[in-house]
C-alpha cells in the first residue's frame, strides 16, 4: 500500500506587496512522510511554520517549490500543482482537516454543519445526520444546541463541532490544527480516544498539539519544524 502522505522538498515564502514587496520566508526543504495508522505531531515554537505546513497540505496556501503527494484512490496526487477541481476532489474523498476555528455559515444547523462532509460523499441526509448526532453526543455537546447554527457558541463548543465535522468521514489522511486547544479535560480525553480509533483504522494523522499531555498520548513521532526554518540557515 502506498504511503498516504509524502511531502518532498517543499518551500514557502510570502511576498507582502503592500509592504513594498517584503519577502517573508516561512519554511524551506520540508520533507517527511506519514504512514497509515501513524500520528505525527509537528513540534517547535510558535511562528515557526507549523500551521503554514498544514495549510499548504490542504491547499489553502500555495507553495513555492516541492511536492505534496496524497494517495487518492490508489494514485498519487500532487496538491502543490493540482488544479482546484482536483484539490476539492481529494478533500472530498481522502483529505480531512480540523482547523483551529470553525468557519460558520449563517442559518445552517450544527447537525447539518457536521453532516455535510458525509452528504458531500453521497450519504443520505438522514444517515449523515444520525452519524453527526452520535459524534456530537460523544463530544458532550448539549443536545439542545444541535438545531442551532454554531456561530453563537463558545470557543470550546465550536471546536467540538469542528472536530465532529472533521472526524465524521473515513478520510485516509487527517490534518489536525490544535483540535484540543480550548477543551476541558473530559473532552480532551474524548478527542484522544477518537484519534486513537482513527489510528487503529489506519488513518494517517498529522497534527499540531500544544498540550503536552495530549501530545504524549497520541504522537508516534514528533517532527521538529525548526529544522525547516530558513531563518536558521541565515543566522
Amino acid at each position, binding site marked *: 500500500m502506498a504511503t498516504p502522505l509524502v511531502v518532498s522538498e517543499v518551500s514557502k515564502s*510570502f*511576498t*507582502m*506587496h*503592500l509592504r513594498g514587496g517584503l519577502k517573508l520566508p516561512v519554511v524551506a526543504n520540508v520533507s517527511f512522510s506519514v504512514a497509515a495508522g501513524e500520528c505525527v505531531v509537528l513540534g517547535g515554537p510558535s511562528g515557526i511554520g507549523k500551521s503554514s505546513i498544514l*495549510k499548504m497540505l*490542504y*491547499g*489553502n*496556501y*500555495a507553495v513555492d517549490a516541492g511536492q505534496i503527494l496524497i494517495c487518492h484512490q490508489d494514485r498519487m496526487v500532487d496538491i502543490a500543482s493540482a488544479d*482546484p*477541481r482536483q*484539490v*476539492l*476532489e481529494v478533500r472530498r474523498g481522502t483529505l480531512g482537516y480540523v482547523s483551529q476555528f470553525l*468557519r460558520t*455559515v*449563517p*442559518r*445552517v444547523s450544527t447537525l447539518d454543519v457536521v453532516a455535510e462532509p458525509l*452528504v*458531500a460523499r453521497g450519504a443520505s441526509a438522514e444517515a449523515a445526520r444520525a452519524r453527526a448526532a452520535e459524534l456530537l453526543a460523544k463530544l458532550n455537546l448539549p443536545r439542545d444546541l444541535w438545531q442551532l447554527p454554531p456561530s453563537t457558541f463558545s470557543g470550546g463548543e465550536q471546536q467540538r463541532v469542528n472536530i465532529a465535522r472533521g472526524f465524521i468521514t473515513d478520510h485516509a489522511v487527517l490534518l489536525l490544527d490544535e483540535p484540543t486547544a480550548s477543551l476541558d479535560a473530559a473532552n480532551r480525553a474524548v478527542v484522544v480516544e477518537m484519534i486513537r480509533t482513527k489510528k487503529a483504522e489506519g488513518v494517517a494523522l498529522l497534527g499540531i498539539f500544544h498540550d503536552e499531555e495530549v501530545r504524549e498520548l497520541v504522537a508516534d513521532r514528533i517532527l521538529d519544524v525548526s529544522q525547516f526554518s530558513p531563518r536558521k540557515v541565515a543566522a
Partner: protein
Amino acid sequence: MSDQPLLKVRNLSKFYGNRIGCNTVSFDLWPGEVLAIVGESGSGKTTLLNCLSTRLMPTTGSVDYHMRDGQYRELYHMSEAERRFLMRTDWGFVHQNPADGLRMTVSAGANVGERLMAIGDRHYGNIRQTATEWLERVEISTDRIDDQPRAFSGGMRQRLQIARNLVTGPRLVFMDEPTGGLDVSVQARLLDLVRGLVNDLGLSAIVVTHDLAVARLLSHRMMVMKDGHVIEQGLTDRVLDDPREPYTQLLVSSILQV
C-alpha cells in the same frame, strides 16, 4: 468526477472602442463547479459575465458549451433563436435587480410557470403545482402565488427570481451580484438558499460579486479581475488565504472584520 467541461472559454475579449471591457480571458467550467468572479466596479466582471451568457457579443474569442446531447457548440455560431432557447431552458440568469429578471406585472406563479411553458409544459394544473413547490423551496408563502412581485419585498423578489430560473432544471446559472442591495439578514438567508440549491441540484454557476465573503461561501474557484484582465485565479480558499498578486492582497486586506 465528470471528465468534460461544461463551458470552454478561450481568449475572450470585449473592447468598447479603444477601451478594454475584458481581455483574453480563458478558462474551463466543470459540471457542479461554482466560479466566482471578483473585482471592484469597472474591473470588467459584468462585461465578462455578459459575454459568457450571450447577452453581449464579444469582440474576439470563443465560448463552447457542452450541450445535453454531448456535443460542444460554439455559442456565437448558433442562431439567435437557438441561443435564446438555451437561455430559457438550460441556463438561468439571476440579475442583481430582480425587476430585470422578473415580469413585475404578472403573478408570482406565472413568473415561475412561464419558463416551464417555454420547455413545452402545457398542463395548467402541473405548472401551478410545480410553481407552488418552487415557491415553498425558496421560502415564499404559497398564498402569495397570485400576487405580483411588485407587492414583494426585495429579498422575496430575489428569491422569486431564483425560483423562476431554477424551475426548468438548468445546468448553468449566471448570477450578477445576487445579494447586492439586500439587508445582511436577508443576504444570509439568500446565500444559504443558493448554496443549498446548488449542492442539491449539482448546478454549475458563475457568480459575479464584489463581496469576498459571498465568494468564500458560494464558490469553489475564484477569478480576480482588474482593468479587464484576470490577474489571479485558483481555489477560492487559496486565493483568499494566500493572495499572490498585489491587487488581490489589497482586496483581501481591505475586508472589514466584524
